[in-house]
């Protein structure tokens, strides 16, 4: 289930492992990865609808912070470095 729109900082979330054949803004390299919410950004028009000229729902957007260790595993250049990306709520699952 997706995090609430005002989700607390440092709430842990996982990026869903979907691979749809269309315009999405969740990068492939982050799918399935677990990060922490760095800050909620508020609601924005869903790019998956805007891209096709379809009326767009507003979806909560979050900045999510991942460690490089989480993203690249043993291949990480420096495990403690971080990667921040903006991910829409429907791409995130809460991690207990």
């Amino acid at each position: 289930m997706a995090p609430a729109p005002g989700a607390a900082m440092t709430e842990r979330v996982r990026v869903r492992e979907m691979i749809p054949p269309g315009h999405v803004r969740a990068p492939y390299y982050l799918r399935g990865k677990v990060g922490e919410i760095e800050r909620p950004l508020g609601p924005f028009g869903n790019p998956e609808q805007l891209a096709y000229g379809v009326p767009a729902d507003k979806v909560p957007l979050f900045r999510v912070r991942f460690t490089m260790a989480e993203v690249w595993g043993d291949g990480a250049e420096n495990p403690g470095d971080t990667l921040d990306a903006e991910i829409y709520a429907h791409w995130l699952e809460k991690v207990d």
Partner: protein
Amino acid sequence: MPHDHHDHHTPHSHSGLSPSGHPYRADQDMPLTYWQSLEIAVRELLIEKGITTELEVMATIDQMDSRSPADGAKVVARAWSDPDFKARLLADASAASREMGFDIGALRLIAVENTDSVHNVIVCTLCSCYPRNLLGLPPDWYKQRAYRSRVVKEPRKVLTEFGLTLPDDMTVRVHDSTADMRYIVLPARPAGTEGLSEDDLAALVTRDSMIGVAIVKAPE
């Protein structure tokens, strides 16, 4: 040694000149290509149909040309000089930029601060999102595969290719502009710049330091 290529500090407002100040001669004399003919056709059709005007197209070009890294440099210099402004910048960089009189349109800007322990670098892996309305158009390398694919995985190695080597005890934070936000790095103020005016400070701030592939050096 950090270095900046073709760093444009001079804003231009002439649609006939490229950002480096050179006229668009080469492009005008080259044989017309298919995609160029499309651009001319689309532009003229939109004008004929009253969707836009020639004047509006030229004004849009001029407005984009008037934006340059010098704008961002002024914001950085103010943040270095005024702690209250810096706090406002870090809280809402769009509002802070507008406060300084920059017409940034709908840009949603986040400023990320470099410190003794943290170095930030910006990328858009999916395309080429960039804070254009504050810094002007991005450099070619920012839009190309090498940077977009590698900087999220081996940022320190990529930074060495720009001439920047970071110590192991610093944390690198890479920001991938995947959605509606755009980013500017607030570079660390170099030592030895105490007492410089805001204008003198702004003159030190390069485009590359605001993307995060360079740091700002004090004047020699």
